[in-house]
């Protein structure tokens, strides 16, 4: 049985593949369409958005859904560093990388979506802030999170890369690393409080939607339900990433860590679902669960999220293929949930509908492609994906053959 003891780069596979070129082509198309959008505007020839449905795919999918999936960095981080769940340290680097990519591409997408992005510079002038606006809270917290704590948390693999591959940089990289160690608890504290704040504010956004958001979703506790959904989405995403690594590059899995991740996913999903029902009960909307035209959507979400969680809690969930499907379906349910208050269960105006245009889809996917491309590059060059010490030794042997002079074992610490 394999133990995940350290992060090991994916080795012995080409970086430039056909998939790499395909992603690059998609990104190129997306960037051209983005340029067109900037000049032409967001009108009906570009997007499916309209005054009643002023928010579309780019905000809901690339920001709300993807930062939800990219919440592993804080959701798993809190379990690992605050609740001292030692097993989970092994997947932290995957969590942090997915978080960073989700947030950074999401923020770029936001810049494309808004009409006057150049006015965003006010964000650095706190006296212009409207402290009542949930969106202001998100704008400040999300940009701060992505550019400071999350970025810093992602630096150690880069430092290591420099240390191993560029001996002349070793001194500086090690100095940076040890400096980071001194302030690390302050960084990760920030890396947890900021997402708790802005992931909940994503929910607070739609409170201002008033009764246009269907009553099954609209609640003063929307912020709490949103941040909680982010938590299980983050777990889903990280488990899917390590299982995909097994599928794509035959990386070994540590059943203990996976069991721990599954256990926490199940716990978060159960409590989240229970809370939603209790909320509906206390608001006196139980009847809507059966009579409301949107009830089917509610039950679909609940089934897609709760069903897989139940499977994960049984013996069947230990089989990797079942586990993969369960997390994928659960993530799908969570993503649909995040679509509901803004789009699916949002009754904008009688007769008003929204369906994203082809251009919206392509641009949206092309920004995801940027994240995927950087992820693939990163896991092949840097120590991100979890593996065993034995795996590291195998990797070292391979790399030392390919790149003579490189030394990946027998490390002697520098005295400071």
């Amino acid at each position, binding site marked *: 049985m394999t133990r995940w003891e350290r992060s090991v780069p994916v080795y012995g596979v080409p970086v430039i593949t056909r998939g790499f070129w395909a992603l690059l082509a998609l990104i190129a198309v997306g960037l051209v369409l983005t340029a067109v959008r900037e000049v*032409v*505007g*967001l*009108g*009906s020839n570009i*997007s499916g958005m309209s*005054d*009643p449905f*002023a*928010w579309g795919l780019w905000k809901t999918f690339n920001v709300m859904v993807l930062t939800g999936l990219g919440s592993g960095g804080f959701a798993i981080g*809190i379990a690992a*560093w*605050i609740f*001292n769940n*030692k097993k989970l*340290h092994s997947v932290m680097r995957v969590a942090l990388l997915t978080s960073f990519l989700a947030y950074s591409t999401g923020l770029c997408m936001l810049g494309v979506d*808004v*009409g006057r*992005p150049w*006015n965003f510079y*006010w964000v650095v002038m706190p006296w*212009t*802030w*409207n*402290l*009542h*606006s949930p*969106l*202001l809270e998100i704008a400040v917290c999300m940009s701060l999170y992505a550019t400071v704590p999350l970025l810093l948390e992602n630096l150690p*693999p880069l430092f*290591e890369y420099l240390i191993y591959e560029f001996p002349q940089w070793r001194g500086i990289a090690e100095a940076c*690393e040890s400096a*980071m*160690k001194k302030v*690390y*608890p*302050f960084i990760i*504290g*920030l890396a947890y*409080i900021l997402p*708790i704040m802005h992931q*909940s504010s994503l929910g*607070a956004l739609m*409170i*201002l*939607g*008033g009764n*246009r958001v269907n009553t099954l979703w609209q609640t*003063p*506790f929307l*912020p*709490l339900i949103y*941040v909680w959904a982010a938590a299980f989405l983050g777990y889903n995403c990280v488990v899917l990433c390590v299982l995909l690594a097994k599928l794509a590059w035959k990386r070994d899995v540590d059943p203990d860590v996976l069991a721990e991740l599954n256990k926490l996913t199940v716990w978060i999903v159960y409590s989240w679902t229970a*809370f939603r029902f*209790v909320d509906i009960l*206390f608001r006196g909307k139980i009847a809507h669960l059966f009579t409301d035209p949107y009830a089917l959507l509610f039950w679909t979400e609940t089934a897609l999220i709760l069903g897989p969680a139940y499977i994960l809690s049984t013996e069947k969930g230990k089989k990797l293929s079942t586990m993969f499907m369960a997390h994928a379906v659960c993530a799908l349910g969570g993503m649909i949930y995040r679509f509901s208050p803004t789009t699916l269960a949002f009754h904008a*105006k009688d007769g008003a509908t929204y369906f994203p245009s082809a251009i919206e889809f392509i641009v949206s996917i092309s920004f995801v492609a940027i994240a995927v491309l950087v992820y693939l590059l990163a896991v092949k060059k840097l*120590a991100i994906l979890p593996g065993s*010490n034995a795996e590291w030794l195998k990797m070292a042997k391979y790399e030392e053959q390919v790149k003579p002079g490189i030394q990946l*074992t027998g490390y002697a610490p520098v005295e400071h």
Partner: protein
Amino acid sequence: MAMTRREAFKNLAKGSLPLLAAGCVSTALPEVAHAEEEKVAPQGALGLLYDATKCVGCKSCMVACSQANDLKPDTRTDGLHQAPPALNYFTKNIIKLYRTADGSDHSYFKQQCMHCIDPGCMNACMFGGLRKDEETGVVWWFGGKCVGCRYCEIACPFHIPAFQWDGFNPKIVKCELCRDHIAKGAKQPGCSEVCPTNAVIYGKREDLLKEAKRRIAAAPGKYFEGKVYGEHDGGGTQVLYLSRVGFDKIGLPNLGENSIPSGLKYSHMLYKWMALPVALYAGMVAFAGKNFKQHTHHLVDDQKKTGLRPQL
């Protein structure tokens, strides 16, 4: 009723916020719910009173509005007539027709910004791109602070702010009660100035409210529910409506008496003085610090065993 609901929230919060320090929240909840002061209209609040029973649907107010605001007429429907289907970035004011399927009943109605006392759009706006004039209460758009995020459109229950969907450097377009037009010397907004039947009149909100109530008293049973829409609806608006048919028929949603931003009062108290976030941060740093120390010791031990460089 109010008491049980508050208790309900309190219990909910208690049972469900281990993540967010439940105690803090539930004790602060009832207090803050009271502390949130109700917003009132400014002293010199200006507005419109639109009486749907007087409107003949001539649409001259739409033309006058376009002229007063230097708006291009929206002729996109047939390339000839100014015939916008709804409020949009060409159109700050519109006359529409409500008619039953069999044509037995109808009423015209006018749509423009309601100039809410506690506007959802302004509450939503990040940097103050939408503002409320302190003296007149007119809600207006300031482009220098607008990011074009369109959150105002989500937050407005009346579907008023319109985004300029086409072209570079888009604007948010909405009725500003002709504040520029009046600053240039006009006595009143374009719409009320030209209305041939005085279906829409301009004045101070308190005077308009008195006039509306006078009309209701003078003709009992004429007006829907004997009510002035906007006196209390959505926390009160500076544009007031009288109608014979139901308000929901003429595009005025049933909002209750609470303003849209008041829905956020439970969220705001989590951020009161930033006390809760700061306390949470301090607590997490303390735990993380302790666990981090343990973890680094563990890393050093590992390195001695394996000879591999420890990973942070």
